């Protein structure tokens, strides 16, 4: 696995070609879906499940459900993630307790899946919730499984019912049956039946498990499965579903580095909820299952997903609407500008964030050139202004500018640059907000205003540049990017609008003949950052 890199890396390659496009073509989607298919197989998701899953993703990616907060690459990843979470968490529920105690919980699974250890964990967990669990040693097959359960029971502080010595001696069905009776007389409200490990193909043992189930009529039958299992997960899960008809799944050994694709296979093939995750050898290493964490683990895309989350959080729809109105009515002030910038900063370290993006890897050099303190400096400049000045930048004469420069520890040149950029931006925004296509001749040369294509990295870079002082660092690259966009025949008007606002391809390339809606969306997008 490690040798072939993570899905993040491979997707980066796939998406590097998409950076200038705002929308995914069927060919792009196919390429992406192929990578995702491979990643899922690497994560041991069963093939039939992979096939079904990728076709769903493909359909949704091609359908016109475009989330404007994300670039195309992120869109696909998000679709994939949503689908994963939907399957993994679709049937999420808690343990069901019997109305008339004792509640009977039966454990079943392959050999070595971790049933006995889980019995102990479950007992301790239930005990912590005020229950009085009874552990039942119905694994009479494996040498000293009974002893192991007794030790585990002692550690968990739970009673153990073990009338038979095990090691092939005794009838597990009878033990299980007696256990329920025993629990009733001793007032245990939960009975946990540990059964022997068995293979799905072992008809005789499956029949035995079915008889145990019949004898004790459990309220829950938990199927314990090793997170490291491969393609066989489906066959095994189906065999156990037919054999003992389990009601829930427990994923064990999640503390390893297996991606745990089995979780997806089992959940999707059997439709049974995954209820718990077992994450270590200690009796406390046990927790309810988190579908979202599992999804990102299977795909190994945690960094991208957390980025998407951040971007969406920072994108405050209402706020954006408000500012759009301000633009339209010409009441956008430096104060709003500051608020925008602070919202941008809320997203965390820009450099770190750009690094997380699949498309940003090629931009590392530019990233290194970008000084994040520029943002802080711009903030300082605005904060050194009086409220009146912030609202009416026209007040800013020479002496005021000198005072501001001194107050913020910058130079007059920097203050000038900021004010100029703000004015130009406000003017352009106003045009756009009113529905016009901005025809700003100075578009190209405006420092830090040119945006790249569709990549969010470029968008963010542009948005962030907008906030910084007079520095021109990184500017030549930006200009080049814009020229490239032009060279590719993107309609100049739209490109200027989109790129200028750090909006990039999503609105730009997707813009048809109705600039108003597109541009407004574009504006919102920008404002969100």
């Amino acid at each position, binding site marked *: 696995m*490690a040798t072939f890199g993570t899905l993040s890396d491979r997707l980066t390659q796939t998406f590097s070609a998409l950076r200038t496009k705002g929308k995914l073509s069927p060919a792009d989607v196919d390429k992406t879906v192929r990578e995702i298919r491979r990643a899922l*197989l690497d994560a041991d998701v069963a093939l039939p499940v992979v096939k079904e899953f990728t076709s769903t993703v493909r359909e949704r990616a091609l359908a016109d459900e475009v989330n404007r907060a994300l670039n195309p690459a992120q869109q696909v990843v998000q679709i994939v993630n949503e689908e994963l979470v939907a399957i993994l968490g679709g049937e999420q529920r808690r343990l069901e307790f019997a109305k008339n105690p004792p509640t009977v919980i039966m454990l079943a699974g392959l050999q*070595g899946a971790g049933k006995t250890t889980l019995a102990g964990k479950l007992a301790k967990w239930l005990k912590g919730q005020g229950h009085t669990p009874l552990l039942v040693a119905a694994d009479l097959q494996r040498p000293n499984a009974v002893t192991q359960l007794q030790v585990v029971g002692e550690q968990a502080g739970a009673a153990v019912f073990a009338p038979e010595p095990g090691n092939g001696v005794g009838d597990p069905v009878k033990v299980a049956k007696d256990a329920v009776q025993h629990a009733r007389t001793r007032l245990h409200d939960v009975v946990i039946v540990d059964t022997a490990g068995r293979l799905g193909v072992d008809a005789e043992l499956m029949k035995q498990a079915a008889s145990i189930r019949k004898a004790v009529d459990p309220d829950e039958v938990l199927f314990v499965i090793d997170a*490291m299992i491969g393609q066989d997960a489906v066959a095994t899960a189906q065999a156990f579903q037919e054999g003992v008809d389990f009601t829930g799944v427990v994923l064990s050994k999640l503390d390893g580095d297996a991606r745990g694709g089995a979780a997806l296979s089992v959940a999707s093939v059997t439709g049974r909820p995954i209820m718990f995750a077992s994450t270590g050898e200690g009796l406390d290493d046990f927790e309810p299952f988190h579908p979202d964490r599992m999804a990102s683990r299977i795909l190994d895309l945690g960094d991208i997903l957390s980025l998407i989350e951040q971007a969406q959080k920072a994108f405050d729809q209402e706020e954006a609407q408000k500012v759009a109105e301000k633009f339209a009515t010409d009441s956008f002030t430096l104060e709003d500008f500051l608020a925008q910038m602070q919202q941008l900063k809320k997203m965390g370290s820009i450099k770190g964030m750009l690094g997380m993006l699949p498309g940003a890897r090629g931009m590392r050099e530019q990233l290194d050139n970008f000084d994040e303190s520029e943002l802080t400096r711009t903030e300082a400049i605005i904060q050194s202004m009086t409220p009146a000045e912030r609202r009416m930048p026209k007040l800013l004469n020479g002496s005021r500018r000198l005072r501001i420069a001194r107050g913020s520890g910058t130079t007059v040149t920097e203050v000038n640059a900021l004010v100029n950029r703000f004015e130009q931006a406000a003017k352009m925004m106003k045009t756009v907000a009113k529905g016009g296509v901005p025809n700003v001749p100075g578009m190209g040369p405006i420092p830090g205003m040119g945006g790249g294509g569709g990549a969010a990295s470029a968008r963010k870079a542009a948005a962030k540049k907008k906030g910084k002082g007079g520095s021109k660092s990184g500017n030549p690259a930006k200009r080049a990017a814009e020229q490239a966009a032009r060279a590719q025949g993107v309609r100049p008007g739209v490109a200027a609008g989109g790129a200028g606002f750090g909006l990039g391809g999503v609105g730009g390339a997707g813009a048809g003949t109705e600039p108003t809606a597109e541009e407004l969306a574009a504006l919102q997008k920008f404002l969100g950052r």
Partner: protein
Amino acid sequence: MAERSWNLGGALRGLFTKPTIDESTWDDLETALIRADFGPDLTEAILDELREKVARYSTTDPADLKRMLRESIEERLAQHDPTLTLSARPAVVLVVGVNGVGKTTTIGKFAKFLTGYGRSVVVGAADTFRAAAVEQLATWADRAGASVVRPQQQGQDPASVAFQTVQRAIDESIDIAIIDTAGRLQTKAGLMDELSKVRRVVEKLGPIAEVLLVLDGTTGQNGLAQAEAFIEHAGVTGLVITKLDGSAKGGFVLAVQERTGIPIKLIGQGEGIGDLTGFTPHVFAASLVP
């Protein structure tokens, strides 16, 4: 070796009864290999190789393809020598692996296998962590007719148990000493270091003949990560594949052997004490592709 249920037979049956090789043959073959846990990369490599061969010999007969597939798998498996080297006296065998793969069971079977050939065996219960692991091993040793070295107290350092086991083998001129270790996930750095320590301590008494990594046949692509980590920390010299009596095909072992160069040496196929056999590439390939 009797009939095995874990071959690709079912998946391939429809494939090789067709009159000619067409595009769907390749798709089906890919599906069959992936479902047998060969993994996407190895599947691709095998398919490429077969496509090339089919083109070279310009054959359209699926029977040829089947033969080529079997040969390809056998060839890949046969690149490494599966013979166990147990000529040293005492021959020290360290058994390692993640939790629940069947280390203790394998040791029981292996001890039986060796006593069956008239070798004296001592097993060391250096799994001092898991509840009742010592008793489980003792039961197996009893069945196999081997003696056991138990930890003198609860939670004793596994390295010291291992040392005592080898010491006893030397003192009593026992042919083979097999040391059971606690299951550990390869991501637990502390536990992996503990394994390195066991190895170092045992080596003070003499070289270790074999370090066997037990892999669960139902494991998927994580088997590779396991192998890599255990090779690094324990110096694995051979692989044991267990639970092949189920419906899993264990295709990942091919990838493990190929990537790491460590040969498969033993195969476990059941819970009975006699269910352990040596590994022969030809038989394995033939039963995988009948």
